[in-house]
């Protein structure tokens, strides 16, 4: 049963990775020249800093909103303010919208929103701080994170609710002390996936970002589109570097959350 899957993976997936690696290394005359060129390029570091800043601000906001919404969902599970089906539909809607449509949607929304409290929302389109990009990311990613955590939350909130009452623990204390440590491993996996994705995301920063600086992926795709097949070795090297960077940063975040979990457990 597993053989067709393995053949498929080796043929189409692993082959592409090996092809990418071998192309990026360059010819015999000067091995790794493309990697050296990239690491000497000032734009690379500038774009890396810009990309990382946007990605980390995004995941921090997503994390805060996700935890806040999980608390609301938990409260709703106990008190049934809103039907769960309606809630599920609302949060699953952004997942169904492709990133490119989401980006144009955010652009139109910001263009049409009138000034509120002296804030001109038009300024967030193609702004140099990447606010438009972060808004689009948060709108798309938060529901995904919620879906990662919801099964555990629903199970835990039902299972030990009576115990909470016996010990007379407040809903917030119970959420913080019991539910959150239980859902954090799921959120951790979600953040790992999201962060690796954000480094390779193209449509949102392309549509909502500024011309300069640009995210690393926009830089790669623009160069990829401009250059022909035989001059793409450096782009392949850039892809490899970006892949490694995204894994390193995602791993660091993952370790960081695991550390928090350990501290939480000790308290518990």
């Amino acid at each position, binding site marked *: 049963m597993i053989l067709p899957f393995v053949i498929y993976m080796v043929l189409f997936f692993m082959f592409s990775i090996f092809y990418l690696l071998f192309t990026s290394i360059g010819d015999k005359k000067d091995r790794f020249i493309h990697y050296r060129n990239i690491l000497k390029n000032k734009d690379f570091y500038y774009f890396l800093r810009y990309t990382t800043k946007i990605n980390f601000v995004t995941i921090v906001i997503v994390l805060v909103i996700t935890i806040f919404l999980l608390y609301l969902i938990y409260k709703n599970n106990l008190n049934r303010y809103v039907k769960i089906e309606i809630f599920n539909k609302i949060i699953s809607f952004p997942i169904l919208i492709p990133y490119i449509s989401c980006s*144009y949607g955010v*652009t*139109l929304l910001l*263009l*049409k929103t009138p000034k509120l409290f002296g804030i001109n929302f*038009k300024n967030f389109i*193609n702004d*140099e701080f990447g606010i438009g990009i972060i808004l689009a990311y948060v709108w798309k990613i938060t529901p995904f994170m919620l879906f990662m955590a919801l099964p555990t939350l629903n199970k835990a909130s039902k299972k030990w609710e009576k115990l909470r009452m016996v010990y007379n623990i407040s809903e917030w204390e119970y959420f913080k002390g019991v539910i959150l440590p239980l859902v954090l491993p799921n959120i951790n996996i979600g953040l790992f996936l999201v962060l690796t994705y954000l480094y390779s995301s193209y449509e949102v920063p*392309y*549509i909502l*970002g*500024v*011309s*300069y600086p640009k995210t690393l992926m926009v830089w790669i795709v*623009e160069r990829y*589109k*401009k250059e*022909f*097949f*035989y001059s793409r070795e450096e782009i392949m090297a850039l892809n490899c570097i970006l892949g490694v960077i995204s894994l390193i940063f995602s791993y660091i975040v993952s370790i960081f959350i695991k550390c928090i979990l350990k501290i939480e457990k000790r308290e518990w």
Partner: protein
Amino acid sequence: MKKIIIFLGAIFLFLFSSCNNKKEEISLYMWGGSNEVNTYIDKIVIPYIYENEGIKVKRVPIVDIKDTVNKLLIEKEAGKKDGSIDVLWVNGENFKVLKETGVLEKDILSRVENYKLLKESTTIRDFGVLIEGYEVPFGEAQFNFIYDTRNGDVPFTSHQTLMEYAKNHKGRVTYPNVSNFTGSAFVRNIVIDILGYDNIISMSDEEFEKNLVAVWDYFKELKPYLWKEGKTYPENEGKQDLLFSNGEIDITMGYTINKVNSKIASGDYPESSKSFLLDKGTLFNNHYLAIPNNSKNKEDALKVINCLISPKLQMEKQKPENWGDYSVLDMKKLTLEEQRKFEEFTKSSKIPTMVELGEKRVMELPPEKLVIIEKGWVENIEKN
């Protein structure tokens, strides 16, 4: 037993006959970023060719023609004989690469029956590169600007008046990023307006780079008066149009002469929109159709191209409600009835007259000069 034999025989005959009648689909690789173009191909071209030639055409939309160019280069490297592309829509730098790498079918121009009806001028050079029968002209394009007449008269007619307009209407002017085809064309047009077409053509690449300093000074002066103070540029023509239709900016642009009529018809632009040209002229070029030499069905591909340049489909293409792209046919070679019909499409108060279009046009620069301009813009304008 008898019944089984008859049944099997019937299946065999059915399969055999259907195999014989089955014609290969012709794949038409085209940039898929325009609703008007896509609808024209899907609703008019494909049914017409099927009815008249019995050939099924499949439009393959692509984000960037460079992807298709790369696909052909990879197929050549891999020695693939039966390629998946039958006809592709191409011009300029991409044609140059395809021609130089030898992946295009030779002499297709003379093998297309309707080639006798084409304007001869369209069959010689593509962005300065000799065509030599490797492509067949498909349409004519001229860069033009669009404004809303409710905001006043024509905003500018030269690079000097553009500067004045931008200074008097801060934040109301912009152009797409040079990484985009339209943005690149705009910058090229301003380069020609400042340095002069004939001067540029006579310059070596080194001389051209030195002379471009004056152009970069011009763009640096313009930058703070642009939309978002020139800190960013719309990523493509679509975004430029979106900003224009939402009243964020005063001017948009494009390479299709009838763009303004098509966009008014689709409700994207206000009824009061109108297009205009620069006094010294705007860029003019042709776009073409080519056949890769590893196409599986070259004969049918030629028939498809023949239909695409036929008076009927060229006329449909020029209708503003379809695509609005100008024809490559020589009017003198058409019947009086056909000439009259074509003339009707050019009568529009929204676009410059045929005489004005003819007078105010400059030819495209060779691909080498184009690369120098794009690199120079990124280094001098985008990064500063």
